[in-house]
Structure formats: structure tokens, C-alpha cells
């Protein structure tokens, strides 16, 4: 029996009335009942705006009296997230508290707090909770918060963001855009939303660093070339222009267009018009328009026909972000591999299963009826092939699957294409595990309860299958007295994964066993100073403990170690893929993975080597090689890591020092 919006509001009002009628003696009890109505209202956008309208009265009637929200001027913006993480009823009170701040910031009368103070508070609250406002959750949020609480928080903050006067957080938002885009994510929706928001709410016309930065991004979406900016050209006018302009003008359009894309990783609709025009009979300008590097240009020369037909088939004025993917498919010389060419050819002719088609369209923000699911899928495939490190898990607990897609894209692109084709046409996938075939549609649920479709197209169709297979492999490996990943990773990801495996977690005793020996292997296997300066070849699956900004244990996470190198300042850093695409990471103890300015390639995260080591609990390695280097590792390095580990996640376990036979 579904109930209507009005009924929900009525129930709230009934409960509010009972609350008002209660004397001080039972006020708190009634407040907790009222909170259960607030909880339900905050699950919908209408509910949030309804609560906003009632927030001042709720405050005046004493919803917060006797609680830590009682005096609004004493609220601490950094504590808001923790309160939301605590769940109902705290989160429900917090929501009304933030909504009343908004009301006071917009001029509602209060004898508790002035308008400017309310405004400053609110801005700070927003800055600290952008992940909710932008629907881009951090790992600790995902680990701690239930789906329901996430929904409430996202509703609250999208409302606050759309209603708050936000001049005060301009710089923070500018940096946020930079942080997201510098990772070159495959899925650009969050970046676009944020840029659009800044564009609507601010006038970044000055010469400050932030203004310039922000303008670059806004232009990448709205006016990627000087001509478009100057003329404020509509797409229609732009088509007229490129058809009638001089050869020089056309050339500079192509160059500027390519440059804007290379600079930001963002593609605009104009780009599609220009590129589609150039592939008709201006082939010479295509490399510039695609922003190709030298290798890319060579690839263009070699496979011009194929590329032209790919562009004409896939790129449309409503399917254009894939141009950036294509640029890197060429830059990575992927077409020079016959299986990739053949795979793409096969995919072009694929007949998509209706179920899969639904999933594809669901993952597209605002699917255009002129673009087919196959076109979207082909575009998505180009993106994933071109930007392997831009693959993300979205708001799903599927780091393992994302890690796999990224790895196949880097090292087995044709295998990935083949998986895409199988899933797209059959809505099924087979992998083999210990001599038994696992067929995804015949398996039980994986880790995902309900896939969040804020995902790139390829992930949206592959992850449901990969997730089930992965989970089945895990189930079959349980109870073997070691971490199931030891067997699952090589089977799931393929022969690129070394079979050697070390885990410091002892399943039988639920404790950390011989951590020193464990770290010694890690250093001997991966640190260039101890491993004969050998480099990491293929991505190494690593299990890490995710910790809060206080260093407290939150949960487990799957990442890939990509390389270990000296950073610009000469220190050794571990560069890794975090499928979470998180820019603002703080793992406590001053361990803050960075995503740029420390030698990272787009999409990589990095940490000083010892800090990285202090968060790992399992990794794969070449056991034959590493053993020879064990004695080289200095005890000091090991102790440094051990201390960090013991004082953070390590507090959640018993530590057994007894040496283990690795």
C-alpha cells in the first residue's frame, strides 16, 4: 500500500503536534518519535524542502533543546559528517539543524544566531561535505554508512548546495574541479556537474589563479575555442562557421579544440561537430583535432580508414566524451594490435541483449534517442581502452571488478573487448576457477545489492557479472586457512598476477602474524633499493586497510600497485590505482595519498613507500625472486612501517611476533 506525499507530510505534522503538546518531561521521547518522521521525509527531495520550511519552527519549539545542537553558534562544521555517519536518530537531527542554518543564513529571524554567522557556518559545513553534494562518496563513507543514510545526506546537501549563497567556498570548489579532472576519470559526470555549478553561481572573470583555473574548465565545456568564446556561438552557428571559414581559421579551430581536450580531459559538443566535419574531407586536421601525440599521429596515418569509420559511427553531437578516449586509444597504439582491431570490429557488429541495453541506457545521464545503445557502448569501450587508470567503481563496493577492468584495459585490451562483447550479447560471462567453469547468470548475488549506475557504460554492464564470479570464487576459497584472495586474484585477473602471496593477517587466530617478516618481503619484492632496482611490471593486486583520518580501522579495500619510483623530490613513492578515484584522501597519521604534483600519471594515487607499506595487509609477488633479496632489507625501515601500522589499524588486532615460514 503506497502512501502519498501528502500522507507523509500529514504524519509528520501529527507527530510534530504531539511533540508540541508534550510537556518538558516527555519532550525528548516525543522528539525521538518525531525524528523517525524526519528520517522518512529526508529520504525524498520534496521531504527535505518540506523540512526546510518547517525547520525554524522545529527549532523554536525545542527540537534541539537538551541536545548538542541546542546552541547553533557552538556547532562545529567538521563534526557534521561524523554525526551523519552515526545514522539515525543523530543524522535526522543533524539534517534539521543544517536546514535551519540555511533558513537563518537566508534571513529568518533568530535570537540564537545572526545571519552572517549562520552563513559562515553553513559554508563550512558544505565544504566539508562536498562528497555528498556531488554524490562522490569517499571510501570511509561507503564503508560506514548505510544506503539509506547516504541517500538522506545526498538529499540534504544537494538541497543546501542549490539554496545556499556560496561565495565563500569558491576556491574550494575550484580546487575540487582540478582534483577530479587531473585524474582523468572515464566518467566525467561529476566534474561536469561541478563545473556547471560554478559557472552558474560565480563570475570567475578575474585574473586570480583560481579564476584562471576555473575558466579553463568552464571553457572546455562551453567554449573550447577562441572563436566560440568570442562569438558566444551556438552549436548551429558553429556548424555554419566551420563550413564557411578559411583554411587557416579551420586549422586553428582544430588545434585549439584538441588542446582544450588534452588540457582538461573534457570534451564539448562543439568538438563532435568539428571532428565529424573534418573526417569528411579534411583528414589533415584530424590529428590536431584529436590532440594526438606522435605515436597517435603515426597510428592515424596507418589506420585512417578504420578510425574514420569509428568516428563516423560512434561520435555524435550527443556522444562526444569518447573522443578523448579515442585520442588515447591511438596514443597507446592499440589499433596496431590485430586482436584489438578485430575485437572492435566484432563489437561494432554486436547485437545487444535487451537486458544489457537497459543497463547501458540507465548508466547514461540523459540518454538521447538519436544515439543507440551500441553507440554508447562503443564510445564507452574507447574511453575505458584509452584511459585505463580512469576506471572507477562509482558508489559501489566493487573495487575488485574495477581493478580488473583497469588491468585488462592496460594489458589485455582485446580480452576486455571480448568480455564486453560476450556480456553485451549474451548477458552472461564465463570464467574458470580451479577446473570448474563459473557462469555468472547461474551464480548467486555478489557484493552489490543494487548497482549504482553512476558508472561508465563498460563498468555498468560488466560489473554485475564480474562481481558475481568474484564472489563465487571467494566463497569457494573460504576456510582454507589463508586469505581467499591468494587463489582468487590469479584466477580472476589472469596470468599477469604472480602466484606468490603474502598476508599478515592470520585467519585461524584472527591476529597479525609476523608483520616484520611480511613487510620484509614487501620491501624485498618491490622497493628498488632492495630488489636490484627491478621495476613493477604488471599491476600488483594489493589488499589494504582503509583507515579514518584518525587512523582507525574502517575496512578492507582492493587496489593495484602500479609502480615504485622516485618522485620529483627524489623520494621513493608507491604509485597505485585506487578504483575509488578519490582525490581527498586522509588515512590518518598524516598519510594522505595524493593524485597530482608528486609525479603521478593521470589516474594514479601515490604515497611515500613506507606510508603505503603501513596500510597493506596482503599482496602478490614473485616468491622465487623476492626470497633472494630478503636479507638486504634494513630493520629500521621495517620498524618505521610497523610503528605506523600498530598505532593505527593494528589496534584492532592482536599481534603475534612469532616468525612465520613464508
Amino acid at each position, binding site marked *: *500500500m503506497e*502512501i502519498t506525499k501528502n500522507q507523509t507530510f500529514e504524519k509528520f505534522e501529527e507527530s510534530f503536534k504531539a511533540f508540541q503538546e508534550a*510537556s518538558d518531561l*516527555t519532550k525528548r521521547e516525543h522528539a525521538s518519535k518525531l525524528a*523517525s518522521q524526519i528520517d522518512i521525509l529526508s529520504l525524498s527531495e520534496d521531504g527535505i524542502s518540506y523540512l526546510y520550511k518547517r525547520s525554524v519552527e522545529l527549532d523554536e519549539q525545542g527540537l534541539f533543546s537538551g541536545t548538542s545542537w541546542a546552541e547553533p553558534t557552538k556547532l562545529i562544521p567538521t563534526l557534521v559528517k561524523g554525526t551523519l555517519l552515526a545514522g*539515525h*536518530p*543523530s543524522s535526522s537531527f543533524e539534517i534539521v539543524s543544517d536546514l535551519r542554518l540555511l533558513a537563518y543564513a537566508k534571513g529568518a529571524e533568530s535570537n540564537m544566531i545572526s545571519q552572517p554567522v549562520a552563513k559562515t557556518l553553513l559554508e563550512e559545513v558544505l565544504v566539508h561535505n562536498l562528497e555528498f553534494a556531488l554524490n562522490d562518496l569517499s571510501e570511509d563513507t561507503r564503508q560506514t554508512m548505510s544506503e*539509506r543514510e547516504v541517500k538522506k545526506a545526498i538529499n540534504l546537501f544537494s538541497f543546501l548546495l542549490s539554496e545556499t549563497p556560496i561565495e565563500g567556498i569558491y576556491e574550494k570548489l575550484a580546487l575540487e574541479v582540478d582534483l577530479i579532472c587531473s585524474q582523468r576519470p572515464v566518467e566525467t559526470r561529476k566534474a561536469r556537474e561541478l563545473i556547471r555549478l560554478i559557472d552558474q553561481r560565480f563570475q570567475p572573470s578575474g585574473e586570480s589563479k583560481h579564476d584562471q583555473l576555473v575558466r579553463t574548465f568552464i571553457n572546455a565545456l562551453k567554449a573550447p575555442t577562441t572563436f566560440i568564446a568570442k562569438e558566444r556561438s551556438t552549436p548551429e552557428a558553429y556548424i555554419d562557421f566551420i563550413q564557411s571559414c578559411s583554411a587557416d581559421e579551420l586549422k586553428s579551430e582544430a588545434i585549439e579544440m584538441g588542446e582544450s581536450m588534452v588540457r582538461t580531459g573534457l570534451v564539448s559538443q562543439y568538438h563532435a561537430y568539428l571532428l565529424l566535419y573534418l573526417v569528411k574531407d579534411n583528414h589533415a586536421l584530424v590529428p590536431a583535432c584529436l590532440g594526438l601525440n606522435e605515436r597517435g599521429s603515426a597510428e592515424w596515418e596507418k589506420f585512417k580508414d578504420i578510425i574514420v569509420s569509428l568516428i563516423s559511427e560512434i561520435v555524435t553531437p550527443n556522444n562526444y566524451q569518447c573522443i578523448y578516449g579515442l585520442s588515447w586509444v591511438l596514443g597507446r597504439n592499440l589499433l596496431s594490435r590485430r586482436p584489438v582491431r578485430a575485437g572492435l570490429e566484432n563489437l561494432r557488429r554486436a547485437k545487444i541483449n535487451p537486458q544489457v541495453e537497459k543497463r547501458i541506457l540507465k548508466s547514461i545521464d540523459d540518454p538521447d534517442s538519436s544515439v543507440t545503445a551500441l553507440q554508447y557502448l562503443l564510445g564507452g569501450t574507447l574511453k575505458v581502452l584509452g584511459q585505463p587508470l580512469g576506471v572507477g567503481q562509482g558508489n559501489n563496493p566493487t573495487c575488485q571488478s574495477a581493478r580488473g577492468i583497469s588491468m585488462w584495459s592496460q594489458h589485455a585490451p582485446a580480452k576486455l573487448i571480448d568480455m564486453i562483447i560476450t556480456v553485451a550479447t549474451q548477458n552472461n560471462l564465463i570464467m574458470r576457477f580451479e577446473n570448474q567453469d563459473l557462469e555468472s547468470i547461474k551464480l548467486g548475488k555478489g557484493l552489490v545489492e543494487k548497482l549504482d549506475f553512476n558508472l561508465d557504460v563498460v563498468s555498468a554492464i560488466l560489473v554485475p557479472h564480474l562481481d558475481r564470479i568474484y564472489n563465487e570464487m571467494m566463497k569457494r576459497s573460504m576456510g582454507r586457512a589463508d586469505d581467499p584472495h591468494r587463489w582468487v586474484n590469479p584466477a580472476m585477473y589472469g596470468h599477469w598476477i604472480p602466484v606468490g602471496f603474502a598476508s599478515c593477517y592470520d585467519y585461524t587466530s584472527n591476529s597479525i602474524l609476523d608483520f616484520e617478516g611480511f613487510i620484509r618481503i614487501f620491501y624485498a619484492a618491490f622497493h628498488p633499493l632492495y630488489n636490484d632496482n627491478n621495476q613493477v611490471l604488471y599491476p600488483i593486486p594489493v589488499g589494504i586497510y582503509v583507515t579514518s583520518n584518525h587512523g582507525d580501522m574502517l575496512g578492507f579495500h582492493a587496489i593495484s600497485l602500479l609502480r615504485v619510483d622516485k618522485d620529483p623530490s627524489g623520494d621513493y613513492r608507491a604509485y597505485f590505482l585506487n578504483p575509488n578515484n578519490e582525490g581527498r584522501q586522509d588515512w590518518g597519521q598524516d598519510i594522505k595519498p595524493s593524485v597530482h604534483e608528486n609525479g603521478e600519471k593521470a589516474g594514479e594515487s601515490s604515497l611515500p613507500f613506507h606510508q603505503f607499506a603501513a596500510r597493506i595487509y596482503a599482496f602478490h609477488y614473485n616468491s622465487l625472486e623476492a626470497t633472494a633479496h630478503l636479507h638486504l632489507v634494513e630493520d629500521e625501515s621495517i620498524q618505521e612501517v610497523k610503528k605506523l601500522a600498530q598505532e593505527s589499524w593494528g589496534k584492532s588486532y592482536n599481534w603475534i611476533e612469532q616468525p612465520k615460514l613464508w
Partner: protein
Amino acid sequence: MAKCFALMGWSLPVIESMQKTGKPFVVVSFPDFEPYAKENDIPFVPYQLDEWSDTSNSLDLVEKLNAYNADVAVPLFEETVEWAGALNSIYRNDPRVLNRAFLFRNKAMMKRKALIGGLRVGLFEEVHNKEGVKAFMKRLNEANLQLDGEEDSWVHIKPFASAGTVGHRLLKSMNQIDEECEDGDFPCLAESHLSGREFSCEAFIHGGKIKFLNITEYVKLGYSNFIPEGHYLESKRDLIYKHVQKLVDIFGIEYGMVHPEWFLTENDELNFGETACRIPGGHILELCGKSYEFDALAAFVQIHDPSLTDEELAEILPPEGFKPKNYHGNVMIYPHKKQFSKLEIPEELNNESYFVDHTLVPPLSTQKISDERAGFGNHFGTINFKGEDPDRMTELLKYYQKVDFYV
């Protein structure tokens, strides 16, 4: 009219209701509550209610309450029933009022009284150790003409003087007696298993007559109930009414509220379970008040006043023949797992038109439930429902009792 009610025990909802009536009252409870009472201007007499000594006894308490002109005592909790009995026997100058209070506090005595008066009760006996329980079960088996290999007859044991389900054990076999009974359980009452559909009544008594009878439908004992009763029990209302009045007559209850529990068999026979005379658990009076649109707590207190006139009675109780518009029910939520970390409210509850509100709270980080539970243990909150169809209500309460809110 009573000059002042002495409320025996600390209950904020009752205090609030009494404040609303504007009738004079004074709260008697442990000294711990004194600061709060002072701060909130609640008339209060601190008393060590768990002690009986030269300085802590009813004569002394009467003295203290004289300052407030108290002349009617009201037991709010099981543990204050004797205190209220003692005070009222002084106020009414009738020593038997105290003896009657003991009836409510000794389940064996209660059963004997019921049996003498002609109510149907199970076979019962006071037992002092495991052997006693076994002997009781053996005799019960014999009486039930047990053959070799047949299951033992079920036996319940319960402390003489605890509220509701506290300390209650159901023993289904001889082995279970050995495994589960502890020395601390004894002495207690052993009782044969009564079959039938269990429900409770809340009968407001004045001058020895039922002035208002509420029937509470138990969906699952200790978990969920709703008011008024569903269609089936409603059709037996007359029968139930007669039995409750009979109970009142047998026990000689004049003023107050009784909360007996009954088992209704398929042959329309009522087995008497037990009765109490304080505020029942399970938020029953809250539900009752909502359905019958009156302040059930204030009525509970005032019905203890012998001097109430018929007009005054009519004011505090629902009108005769009042038909509630809605059924109000609740389900108390207990965690199903022993270890859990999150409160998860299922989506379907948001869209449930019968849903009113809930008082569930999240666990403290990762919380474990200890193995020792008194009665059904402490519940983590209540979910309230309201609606017009008792069958739908039953369905909902059954359903949500099975949902695990703590994961």
C-alpha cells in the same frame, strides 16, 4: 475527590498526564530522582522502596505523605504493589487491602485464590529445586496418560513475584530441566502448559465493578500487541467481560485496574493465566489511550480514588459503548543477531500507510547481546502502527517482528 494521589514509582508519562489533569499528586520513589524532581517542580518524597526496616516502612511513609495530604496510593510498578496496598489499607482503614496486594505478588497464592473462586487454571505447585520440577512433570505425565516414548508434558516455571515474562522458563522435557534450571530459580511456581490464544485485559474497576474494559490482542507475547482487539476476540467480548468481573469478585478488588492474562480455547473456555494491578508493559495504556481517545494513564491513577462520583468517572473514561476508529498497535524490536553494528530501517516501512513512528536507536559501535536476558530482554525501541483493519495490523506486526533491524 481525592485530596492527593501518591504515585508509587517514577514514571514521566504518568507525571505528565497528572500534570495535565491539574489534580494534586506526589511521587514516591528512590532518592536518585530527587534532583530531577526539584528542578522540574514535581512534588516528590524520596523513599528507599527496596528496604523494609525501622526507618523504611508504611507507617513512616504515611507520616511523610501527610505533608501532602495524600489519601490514595497508586502502584505504578510491580515492585510497588505492596507499598500501595499497605498505604491504601491505612487510608481506607481496611487491613485486607494489603492482603489483597499480596495476592498480586505471589503467583501461587493468586492461582489458589482463582481456583477456589472457580476460574479455570492449570495444574500448579510451589517447587523448591530441580527434583521438585521433575516430580511435578512426572505427575503431569501420569495425569496425561503418557505412554513410553511419548513426549513429556510441558511445564512452565516462574518466580512468584516478578513482572510479566521476567524469569519465565518453558521446560519441554526432563533433560531440559537438568540443563536449564539453576539454583537461583528456586523457589518458584511450576505450572502446566495452558493452551489457547493468549490475550490480556485492562479492566478499570470502581466500587468492585468494571467501568471500562479494554482487551489487548497479543500478536506475539512480549513482542507485539494491538488495541482494540481484533474481530475474533471482539466476538467473545461478553464472555471475557463475565470472566473478568468474576475475577474481580473473587479477588475482592474494589478500586484500581487489573491486567489479567487469559487463554481462550477453541471451545470458548477461558483459562486464567495471571493478573497484575500496575501499569502493564508493552506500552499498552499508550495504545489504549490512543484508540479510545482518553488519557489512560490519568484514568489509571484516578480510578484508585474511592470517592470518585459517577460524573467524574464518566469524564475520565471513554463513553460507554465507544467504538474506536482506529486500531493502534506496536511491535517491540529486539536484535536477532548476537553481534551487530548498524540500525537498518527497511524501505517498505517508509511507504507503509499504517506506520506511525518508531523509537529505534542505533547500537553503540559494535554491540553484543549478552546471553543472559531477563524476560525477553530489553527491547531496542518500538514501532507504532495505526490503521482501520485489524487483520492488516496483525499481518504487519507479525512481519516486522521477523525483520532484523540490527545488522
